[in-house]
């Protein structure tokens, strides 16, 4: 059956702004940019799609109530909406610019941020210039230059030579060097990631809970951290890292206890040991796992001490991810970096109903408690549910959390306002260098594009954060959500299904056009509806939309097997 866009109903703004154009039954009216003139509000009502195949998303309605008011209506309560709305991928773009670029402002983004894009010399540098019309405190530094190098040694040399003023991801072996250099400052980044040993619980002998628990007790996490992780890394005592709401202080965790491991194996009917088959991993350094091969080797050795035999199975990165998503791995090493600071970003993707197949089909009791927690609005109740999830997780052991990988940034000592963001979104508008009108930052890699609705790498998101702002933001150097383009935190209804944002008045984009509610609606719509003409981006995956809002309207049909 041909799928038509259904349920599209136009609402004309009531009360505050007179509509001057007649509504068109077939499509949305365009906005003239506000500024006190005609304003025809955009609104999309897809609430009849809620819970209906193939729509898996949670957004029901998106409405410009008036020029400065936006309302989100959800299919189900989502108390994490503010944390999601603050994320870089839902930065606001001028509706007209999205149309002019065909939904793909990859190399010419326009935003409201403290910096605007001055030049992008592909392969060489990105130059941002201060937005002199910024609605907030003007950035103290006129120009920020982004450069990149994959080699940590090269980044450090650039910093030490004075060619750059700050660098990302100081090499673990260089922490002491930077800390001991008075001309530099080392700033550790709070880890918002987790490295874990995962089990596909549908495959024998990993389907035995006692065997999985035995593995948990057999791992000396302190040893791994000490030998293979940079300073600032921590032993993981649960799936959520500290810094994510609902992290439970003093949660029960698998401690290093070889005797207990042997007891559990014996109880499971393997008093003489057991062969768990391959330990699969990819040799791709990640923030949660900087030395994969060495860690894999050490884990193998540690397990052998309690009679658990594994063979190392190094896979190519892409193939490994493919196998993980298909549920074709048994015992494996993987991890996760936070996208947004909410427990659902960690729990639901991995262990929620419909989550990844890495761990097999999962457990109903864990699904239930996570589903309930995601829909609970009271903070205390939510925390209690996630604590319960920790207990279930500990018992079922679909994975053993091992480490929260630390990292650090480094700046010249005289950089004022230098900080490290746990989300790797350093705010350069908060930094200055006396006597210097330009700040040069060196990160790991070049962004692939600067339309961050369709980007996933931190290198792009960091640049986007300086240019495009979202309705809310994360505090500088932290994860607390604060108002940004919204003048205040949103108002929610009692069910937490309706969220209303009042925009700041007088905010302009870098091209001089005024921000209004239609820009917000269009920025979201371009991602939400897979059939929208502006749903183009760079590679068209809009990956983070799924993580934030569950799924696209009018998703492409799944190919038949």
């Amino acid at each position: 059956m041909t799928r038509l866009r259904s349920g599209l109903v136009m609402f004309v703004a009531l009360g505050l702004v007179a509509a001057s154009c007649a509504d068109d039954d077939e499509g949305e009216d365009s906005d003239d940019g506000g500024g006190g003139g005609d304003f025809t509000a955009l609104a999309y009502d897809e609430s009849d799609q809620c819970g209906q195949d193939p729509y898996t998303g949670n957004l029901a309605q998106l409405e410009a109530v008036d020029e400065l008011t936006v309302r989100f209506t959800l299919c189900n309560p989502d108390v994490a909406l503010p944390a999601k709305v603050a994320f870089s991928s839902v930065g606001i773009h001028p509706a007209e610019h999205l149309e002019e670029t065909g939904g793909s402002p990859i190399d010419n983004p326009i935003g409201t941020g403290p910096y605007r894009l001055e030049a992008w010399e592909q392969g060489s540098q990105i130059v941002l210039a201060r937005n002199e019309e910024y609605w907030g405190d003007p950035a103290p530094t006129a120009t920020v230059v982004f450069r990149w190098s994959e080699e940590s040694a090269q980044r450090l040399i650039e910093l030490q030579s004075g060619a750059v003023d700050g660098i990302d991801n100081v090499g673990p072996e260089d922490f002491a060097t930077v800390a001991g250099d008075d001309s530099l400052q080392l700033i550790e980044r709070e880890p918002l990631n987790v490295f874990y040993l995962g089990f596909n619980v549908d495959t024998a002998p990993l389907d035995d809970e006692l065997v999985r628990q035995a593995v948990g007790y057999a791992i000396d996490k302190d040893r791994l951290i000490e030998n293979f992780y940079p300073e600032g890394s921590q032993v993981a005592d649960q799936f959520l890292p500290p810094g994510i709401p609902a992290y439970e202080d003093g949660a029960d965790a698998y401690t290093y206890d070889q005797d207990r491991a042997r007891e559990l194996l014996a109880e499971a009917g393997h008093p003489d040991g057991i062969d768990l088959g391959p330990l699969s991993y990819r040799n791709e350094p990640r923030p949660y796992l900087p030395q994969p091969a060495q860690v894999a080797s050490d884990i193998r050795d540690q397990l052998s001490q309690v009679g658990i035999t594994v063979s190392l199975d190094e896979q190519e990165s892409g193939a490994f991810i493919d196998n993980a998503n298909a549920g074709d791995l048994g015992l494996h090493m993987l991890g996760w970096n936070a996208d947004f600071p909410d427990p659902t970003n960690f729990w639901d993707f991995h262990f929620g109903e419909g989550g990844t197949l890495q761990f097999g089909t999962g457990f109903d009791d864990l699904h239930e408690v996570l589903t309930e927690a995601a829909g609970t609005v009271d903070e205390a109740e939510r925390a209690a549910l996630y604590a319960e999830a920790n207990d279930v997780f500990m018992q079922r052991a679909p994975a053993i959390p091992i480490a929260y990988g630390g990292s650090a940034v480094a700046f010249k000592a005289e950089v004022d306002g230098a900080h490290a963001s746990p989300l790797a979104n350093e705010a350069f508008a908060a930094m200055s260098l006396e006597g210097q009108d330009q700040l040069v930052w060196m990160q790991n890699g070049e962004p692939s594009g600067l339309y961050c609705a369709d980007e996933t790498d931190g290198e792009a998101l960091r640049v986007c954060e300086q240019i495009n702002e979202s309705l809310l933001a994360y505090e500088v150097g932290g994860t607390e959500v604060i108002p940004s383009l919204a003048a205040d935190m949103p108002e929610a209804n009692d069910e937490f299904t309706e969220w209303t944002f009042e925009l700041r008045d007088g905010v302009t984009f870098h091209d001089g056009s005024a921000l209004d509610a239609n820009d917000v609606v269009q920025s979201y719509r371009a991602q939400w509806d897979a059939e929208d003409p502006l749903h183009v981006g760079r590679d068209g995956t809009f990956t983070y939309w799924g993580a934030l809002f569950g799924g696209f309207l009018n998703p492409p049909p799944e190919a038949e097997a």
Partner: protein
Amino acid sequence: MTRLVGRRLLSSIPVLFGILLATFAIARLLPGDACEAALQERADPQTCEDFNRRNGFDQPILTQFGDYLGDVFTGDLGDSVRFRRPVMDLLVERLPVTLQLSAAALLLAVVVGVPLGVIAGYRQNSKTDVATIVGANVGVSIPVFVLGLVLQYLFAKELADTPFGLPPSGQLTAGTIPEPFYDAWGLEKNTVFDFVANFDLLNAVLIWRWDVFVDAAQHLVLPALALSTIPMAVITRMTRSSLLDVLGLDYVRTARAKGLRERVVVVRHALRNSLLPVVTVLGLSLGTLIGGAILTETIFNLTGVGKTLFDAIQGRDYFVVQGFTLMVAVVFVIINLLTDILYTFLDPKVRVS
């Protein structure tokens, strides 16, 4: 001459086709795909299915190759999956970086290597000769990666506040955006102009910006030095051994017998003939430098052909891998052809035959 050029160009066609076929096949045989390389843990089967469909990677492999071959013949090398830009644009942007670096390295290698080789050959078995040979061996043996880091540490950090200080990167000073010459001259941008403008040194001259020229030159010293050590060593040894061969020939003995000064014998009579094999080495070295500057480009932060190719392989950016490999092969063919042509001018025997 025309027949030579024509024959060589014709014979290069099957070579280039073979390279294209091999690159296409090898790239597709690599495990994983562009979607998984880009999205890492966030890659899921449905997303990647859509991705592959949008990019035509779900088509039968022969169809993909046929389509690509057809596009190549019309000058379309496809679009980068990562950057969403034509591969040709990336080539125009990045090939000059590598050519400039390679040319600088080769110039350094020749300027230092030929005189060293002449001195070593002229003073065979002397301390100078031995020192030169040992130095050449060391130059060949030190990994470029290590040498590059050592040079950076020495000149960019330890000597930073001295007149010998040099920047650690091969790029212009951060924030420097020189105007392309075609804008300065009021010309309309086109592919050729853009290509020329991406040679920083040349563009700086064309826009009469000596500050930018000096900046570009300063930034080029360390990477060129690092990259030049291997060809320098090869050229030194080749010049030395070739000179020794020539110095043993009858006509040189005759020149000496006529009472010419030794310097005149070596420089005016022996050197030209001894440089013939060096010309061949130069051509091969340039081709190798262009294709193999990846380590130097990585260490000195230059986004040239090697670095781009390496990133494209890692990211399964198939069209970039294919297009860049093909272009490196074309450059190699052209350089070899030019070397042969130059040889015919230098050696009358080759011209006659």
